[in-house]
């Protein structure tokens, strides 16, 4: 980019204030246009989904299973599957993530292994989600023969969000003032007692809100589930962790690939439900953080 600037001409300095001012205004409008593009994209995206999706919502839509007939199709099995899977993801990724964060923040010596662990977590957070799908396919589905079950899906998503949970939990633990630990040690607490009774409770609101945000990321994931073989058409409720599974985003994917407009409307309806659920989770995360932070 080149803009007018002050210059020397014939030994005299010309500040060219007016030209530079006008260039500045042009640039500001260029930037405003970019901002407007981002904000307008969000609005168009939401409006285009809500106008089609909200009319598709009905009690039947929530209570029915998918069907070949658009007027009878619903997202019951997808919602139950997603909810069950997220519960399992929470049960797996929360203890592992908090444990790893506690180790790195409170126990780990400063050595090569620790640095390796940290770099590794940072890099895992950048691995494409579809690669986690391949990992789940080869190790969980085929090698451990867990088949295409709710458990496989949940374990794959847990590995996917684990780096995010660890990073959030580490930040929460790091924010606990050292004076709390000092006071506990001064009263004769062991390291674990100081953590268990002082550090963890103080860090918990932020850990929880970080975990919920990670779960909302897991709730929107599609690609790894497709790779490990989520069923795009299930018409029964999942009752145990070894049942075949689907997920709300998988159902959205499936309906979007259908050429008929009726199915597209169902996809929009399912998106409204998904976005609503994710919005609730994010709101809960913000509330927890604000409410319990002193």
């Amino acid at each position: 980019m080149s803009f007018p600037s002050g210059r020397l001409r014939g030994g005299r300095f010309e500040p060219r204030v007016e030209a530079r001012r006008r260039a500045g205004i042009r640039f500001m409008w260029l930037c405003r246009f970019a901002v407007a593009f981002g904000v307008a994209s969000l609005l168009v995206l939401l409006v285009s989904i809500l106008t089609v999706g909200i009319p598709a919502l009905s009690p039947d839509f929530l209570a029915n299973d998918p069907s070949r007939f658009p007027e009878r199709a619903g997202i019951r099995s997808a919602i139950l599957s997603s909810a069950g899977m997220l519960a399992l993801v929470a049960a797996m990724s929360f203890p592992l993530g908090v444990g790893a964060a506690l180790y790195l923040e409170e126990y780990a010596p400063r050595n090569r292994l620790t640095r390796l662990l940290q770099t590794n977590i940072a890099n895992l957070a950048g691995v494409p989600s579809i690669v986690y799908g391949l990992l789940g396919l080869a190790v969980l589905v085929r090698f451990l023969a867990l088949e295409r079950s709710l458990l496989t899906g949940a374990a794959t998503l847990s590995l996917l969000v684990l780096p995010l949970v660890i990073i959030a939990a580490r930040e929460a633990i790091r924010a606990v003032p050292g004076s709390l630990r000092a006071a506990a040690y001064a009263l004769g607490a062991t390291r674990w007692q100081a953590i268990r009774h002082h550090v963890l409770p103080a860090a918990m609101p932020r850990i929880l809100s970080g975990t919920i945000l990670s779960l909302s990321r897991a709730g929107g994931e599609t690609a790894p589930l497709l790779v490990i073989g989520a069923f795009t058409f299930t018409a029964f409720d999942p009752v145990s962790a070894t049942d075949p599974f689907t997920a709300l985003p998988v159902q959205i994917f499936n309906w979007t690939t259908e050429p008929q407009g009726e199915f597209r409307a169902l996809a929009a309806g399912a998106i409204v439900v998904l976005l609503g659920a994710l919005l609730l989770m994010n709101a809960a995360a913000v509330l927890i953080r604000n409410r319990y932070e002193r």
Partner: protein
Amino acid sequence: MSRPDGRLRPHGRLRAGRSRWGERLIGALLFGCGAVSILTTVGIVVVLLTQSLGFFTEVSPLEFLAGTRWSPDPAPRSFGILPLLNGTLLVAGGAALVALPAGLATAIYLSEYASRQTKRIVKPALEILAGIPTVVYGYFAVVFVTPILRAVFPGAGVFSAASAAVVVGIMILPMVSSLSGDALSAVPRSLREAAYGLGATRLEVSTRVVVPAGLPGIAASFILAISRAVAETMVVALAAGATPRMTLDVFESVQTMTAYVVQASLGDAPSGTIGYRALFAVGLVLFFITLALNLVSQRMAARFRESHT
């Protein structure tokens, strides 16, 4: 009582006289939690490498990396990955054309121009954009962007790299704007004040002082965003099509590496077959490309942090 790393722990004579096995056990357990992340990496690398090795016993690496025809299914099979790379680069390149200038301009506006009130509206909007699941972007591409493209450019197909590129661009825009914004706000105030003091206009301060000073951080955000675009799956699987081909025409249907993996896994390839192993060979290439981009980005971000602290 505090060690060189600044961490407090019981020390010297205050330490318990006997060793506490419970405490040690807990330390070991917590280390085990951390080790899961190492195991994940090892698992990913081992799985991708072993399956790919199986693949390369049947297909020569040269044919794989230099072949210009990707046709895993119908009879004369051919496993040249270049068409898939072509599709990925076309979409990621197009997305970068949308997201990098718009994201940087947004970052400049928010850090140098915007009032507090504008920031209060724009920042959350961009955060929402960043939190929307990719499958929703895929729906948006198919149902909204593609028909518009086809109306404006009659040559555009039902599936096109252009539609996917525009939508992936919108998807990575918040990442560019927030990370480059961080880089810009890390530039010391004194630099700006010195430039204003010399009579520079706001435009000159922004583009000749602040942006150059934040350049490593901005570059880091650009590279990370491109890595995200390369890894993006759902938008390309839904909108870019399933036709692996060597083309630079953005209005044609193409296939990216990620879209191939999705398409092939929908077909449920039995394990041990070459089709199944091809998935992992493609996954390996994808893994290495994104890893390389992420490492470069991290290196740049680290250098930027050092120069400003």
